């Protein structure tokens, strides 16, 4: 599979001297479904901010499709969708349809083409029939799927989701997982940042674990030893606590 992202010795140092990412090197290919895990503050979101060009490395480089990422920002915007953890700030339409249309309208789409795209994105996010609803009347899970629909409407080849299961109840988690499973079967690259790894364990083809800005594990999820979870403050997904979620 062609390479999508590559980080080479990526370092990020905060103004107070703390290291957010420490000489991190990894590569992500098209079509992968990646679970990025780690405790709070491990550097998961920071790494993704570098992948979408919202942060600049202190040293090292990030490449997107083989070229330095900072030189191909417009292409990154078209190809990579990012669903933030705080969906509230990501929703800026007065109706669901208006919000979903924001991205494609920025790509120059208009009229029936735009309407069709919005409708399709809402269907993909299991939000068909919600077009005229006001976003603030939606539940937490529905809002999360609305943020996802806004991203899907731009037809990205890669979707990054930051803590997509945070504050969601069981049915909402299932809804989000259902959408992700469908997107994966369509061949899209999916990167999910979470510390609730049990929810993505079966779906992911690869797991990356970060701890204090360092890469401590990068392999198939089931090849991780118990020690990794313990060391990185993660709940062990091998135990039988979550049978309803890890079903393939």
């Amino acid at each position, binding site marked *: 599979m062609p390479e999508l992202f590559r980080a080479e010795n990526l370092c990020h140092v905060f103004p107070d001297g703390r290291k957010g990412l420490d000489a991190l090197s990894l590569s992500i290919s098209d079509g992968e479904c990646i679970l990025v895990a780690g405790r709070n503050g491990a550097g998961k979101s920071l790494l993704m901010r570098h992948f979408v060009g919202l942060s600049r490395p202190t040293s090292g480089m990030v490449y997107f499709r083989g070229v330095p990422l900072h030189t191909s920002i417009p292409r990154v915007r078209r190809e990579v969708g990012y669903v933030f953890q705080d969906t509230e700030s990501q929703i800026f339409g007065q109706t669901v349809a208006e919000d979903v249309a924001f991205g494609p309208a920025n790509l120059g789409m*208009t009229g029936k083409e735009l309407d069709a795209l919005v409708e399709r994105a809402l269907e993909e996010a299991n939000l068909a029939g919600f077009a005229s609803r006001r976003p603030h009347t939606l539940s937490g899970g529905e809002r999360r799927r609305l943020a996802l629909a806004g991203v899907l409407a731009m037809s990205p080849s890669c979707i990054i989701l930051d803590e997509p299961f945070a504050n969601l109840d069981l049915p909402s988690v299932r809804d989000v997982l259902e959408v992700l499973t469908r997107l994966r079967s369509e061949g899209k690259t999916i990167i999910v940042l979470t510390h609730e790894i049990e929810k993505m364990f079966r779906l992911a083809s690869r797991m990356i674990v970060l701890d204090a800005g360092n890469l401590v594990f990068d392999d198939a999820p089931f090849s991780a030893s118990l020690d990794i979870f313990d060391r990185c403050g993660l709940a062990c997904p091998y135990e039988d606590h979550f049978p309803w979620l890890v079903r393939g």
Partner: protein
Amino acid sequence: MARQRLNPFAFEPGASPLARLHPVAKLIFLLAITSLVMKSGVTLLLALALAATVLQWGLPLHGGASIGFVLWLSLFAAIVRGVLPGDGRLFDPATLGPSAYYALRLVAVFLFSRAFYATTRIAEIGDWITAGWRLLRKALIRIRPSRRTGNVIASARGSVTSPGGTGDAIEVDTDGSAPHADIADDPGIFITLTLLFLPRIFDLYTRIDEAGEIRGIRLRRRNVLRSLGMLQQLVFAGMRQAYRTSLAMEVRGYNPDRALRLRPFNAADWAVMAVPLLLLLLF
């Protein structure tokens, strides 16, 4: 939760047919009717106030609760007008009539404005503003090449740097006719985001107020220092939300050259604009 319902800025189209009217038609209607309310005689004012009340039909009721604020404002204005008329009396009852008249004007304007705000998609207004600005800009470039435009044209020939002297040439279209759009070329997005943020700031205020109340601090009590502290939180929280929204816009590919959705006017829209303008001419 109950206080959240008082949000007067919320978009609550309800089942009202107003929601289907063209936003620009409604804006022109609002401007014309407000002028009419401010200059009309008592009979017309009563009729307009009645019409404003009828317009609330089909709108959710809770947004109208802030009419209490308008009434308090009117009462305050009435007291200020009547106190110490200058002839030794404490209050002049003769000012009550004009004050009631003034209050009715305020109420009518409030109700018309609320009907407009509750049923209008701000993004549509924003798109029309940007469309107007783009037209104006195009016309200005044709009529009178400004310093910027001159520079742009010269820059297209490869010889001019930006007015700031940074050495960065201003970006131009390949035909040299206009610069690439930047955020200043999209005033509609400013208006849209500002108006869109009003209800969010209001909700934020409610949340901070409630959080303070749980910890024993009440914004509405007369404790100026504590209230200022809470308001400081409001400003910071608002700025944080604005920052996150700007990031989200960036990631969703915000482009000042974005496609605009401009709905055409229909007969009902023309009628909505014509009636108040006609009344304005007649009265």
